[in-house]
Structures are given as structure tokens and as C-alpha cells.
């Protein structure tokens, strides 16, 4: 006998996770693994937003940036690694050269082709990216971390500061995105 729950659950899961969960879960495990590889080798809990300030130390002698001089070279390497890793994804899964039942491709944004590699472009308007970026740059540095520093390494460390930080930016981001949507700003 088919119960009501069995009929209901797939529809619920479909509406909460229209793209499935595997690409998210697998991607998340890999993000964590990348952080763990660095931690295992070096003892460093890497975050992505410090790169912004440490890289500014190359061009500005403000004391706030100069405190990151010792780590600025490897932070550039970490960021180049992130770009390169995403590019490896682009030439494999995004280009359809490699496929897997765990990967759902999705239909957001625009794709374009360069030398047989499928690349991707956002539809989100530049003013949103630029203005949002300014606030991300200010907020992550004042707030002591971003989605990777607080969200991945800090939560993984069971740090109360990070958990409070994540709850704060999640709630505010949800509120902001809902207001932006209600105002009819799209994409």
C-alpha cells in the first residue's frame, strides 16, 4: 500500500532540491577536503577573504595590510589554485567531457565556447556584483571571516564566534535577497 508520505516526500524533495543534492554534497565534501589537505600539511586553517587584504599589502603600506606580509605569497598561490581547480571543473564536467550520475548540469546563466571548452557567464547585473562586492570586502574583513573561514573551517572547529558569524550573515543575506527579489530586481 502506498502511503500519503511516500507520495508526498518525492514532491517535497523536488521542490526543496530541484537540482538534486549530490552535486552540492560532493562539491561540499571536496571543498572541505581541499581545506583539510592544507591543514594536514601545514596546520593552517585557510580562509579565502584574507587574500584581499594580504594582496593589498603589495601595493599599499597601510599597517592593516602590512600585517599580512608573511602570508601574502602563499595566499596568492591558494587563490590561483582555486581558479585552476574551477577551470579543471570547466574543462571536464562543465564541458560535458566527463559526466557522472552525481553531477547535475543546470541551466543558470549563459554558456560560451572557447576552443572546445564550455565556459560560463553570469546573468547577474554588474552593478549588483560591484556594489555587493564592496560590501563583501568590507564585511568579511571586519567580521573576521567569510563563508570559507567562518563557514567551513570555523564551523568545523566548533568555534562559537564562527557559528554566530555564519548565522548573522546567513540571516542578513536571506533578508537582503528576499528584498531584492520583492523589488523586482532580476537578474
Amino acid at each position, binding site marked *: 500500500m502506498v502511503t500519503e508520505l511516500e507520495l508526498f516526500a518525492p514532491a517535497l524533495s523536488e521542490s526543496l532540491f530541484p537540482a538534486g543534492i549530490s*552535486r552540492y554534497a560532493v562539491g561540499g565534501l571536496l571543498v572541505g577536503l581541499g*581545506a583539510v589537505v592544507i591543514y594536514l600539511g601545514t*596546520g593552517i586553517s585557510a580562509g579565502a577573504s584574507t587574500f584581499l587584504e594580504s594582496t593589498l599589502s603589495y601595493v599599499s603600506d597601510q599597517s592593516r595590510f602590512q600585517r599580512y606580509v608573511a602570508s601574502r605569497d602563499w595566499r596568492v598561490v591558494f587563490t590561483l589554485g582555486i*581558479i585552476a581547480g*574551477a577551470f579543471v571543473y570547466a574543462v571536464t564536467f562543465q564541458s560535458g567531457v566527463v559526466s557522472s550520475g552525481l553531477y547535475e548540469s543546470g541551466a543558470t546563466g549563459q554558456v560560451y565556447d572557447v576552443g572546445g571548452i564550455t565556459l560560463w557567464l553570469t546573468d547577474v547585473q554588474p552593478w549588483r556584483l560591484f556594489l555587493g562586492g564592496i560590501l*563583501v570586502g568590507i564585511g568579511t574583513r571586519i567580521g573576521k571571516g567569510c563563508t570559507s573561514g567562518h563557514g567551513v573551517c570555523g564551523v568545523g572547529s566548533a568555534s562559537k564566534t564562527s557559528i554566530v558569524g555564519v548565522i548573522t550573515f546567513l540571516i542578513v543575506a536571506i533578508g537582503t535577497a528576499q528584498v531584492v527579489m520583492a523589488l523586482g530586481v532580476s537578474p
Partner: protein
Amino acid sequence: MTQKRHPLFIPLIFVGGLIFGFGLGFSHMARPEVVLNFLQFEDFGLLFVMGGAAVVTGIAFALVPRLFDRAPLTGDIYGRRLKSFDRNVLIGGAIFGVGWGLSGICPGAAYASLGVGNVTILWALAGMFVGAYLQGYWRSQRASTNARATSTD
């Protein structure tokens, strides 16, 4: 730095970044649209990205310090990522939240977005550098003003 580093230090950082960035691409976090879909309650997949990543780091951060003494490439003692709590965590977190909710992009995902071909994300990266500079300039000035004030006391 004058201190000599292990020759594998930089290569290991790169490999860690590579896996990290591949994960951000694979999970579609490098696409602002997908992050905005989460924040607008249209696709809750992002919870599995953050959750999956935090589970992996959680296990490592709990086990590694008990199993090993020091990190092989730096000689540093394994610790957890613990930052002191103060008002800045809330103020900064809220400012970051407005920016993230408006743009759908955070720093790590922005770097990865470049890697998947999204040159438009340079707007966000430029904004992030401007924002990081503004707060750094302001805090540096304030720190030196405070230092001058105390030294003349």
C-alpha cells in the same frame, strides 16, 4: 620571509586550492544565480555544500591534533580555527550578509567563478578589493591615531 620554508609548502597550498576550487565549481557555488536561488528559497542545495565541507573539516580538526603533534611542512602545532568574539563579528557579518544577498557571491566562490570562465565576476572582485581597501585604510588610520593619542599621554 627570511625563514626557509619546506619545498613542498607552496605546492601543497596549490593542490589544496585546486581541490577546493574544483569543489566550488562542481557544486555550482561559483554561479551567483545558484547562491541567490538558495537565499530566495528556491533551491536549498547550498546547505549541503556548507554542511558537507564542515563535516569533513570537523572530523579532521577533531582527529588530527590527537593523532599527530606537528604539521610536517611548517612544524606548527595543530590547532582549531578559533577567533575572539566581539561586536565586529556581528557588524562585519551583517555587512557581508547584505553584500552576499545582493550579489550572490563570496570571496572563494568569486575566485572559482573566474576559473569557470565568468569574466563578469571581475566586477565583484574589483568591488571586494575596493571594500577591503576602504576598511583597511579606515582601521589603519584609526589605529595610528589611537597610538599617537596614547603616546602623548
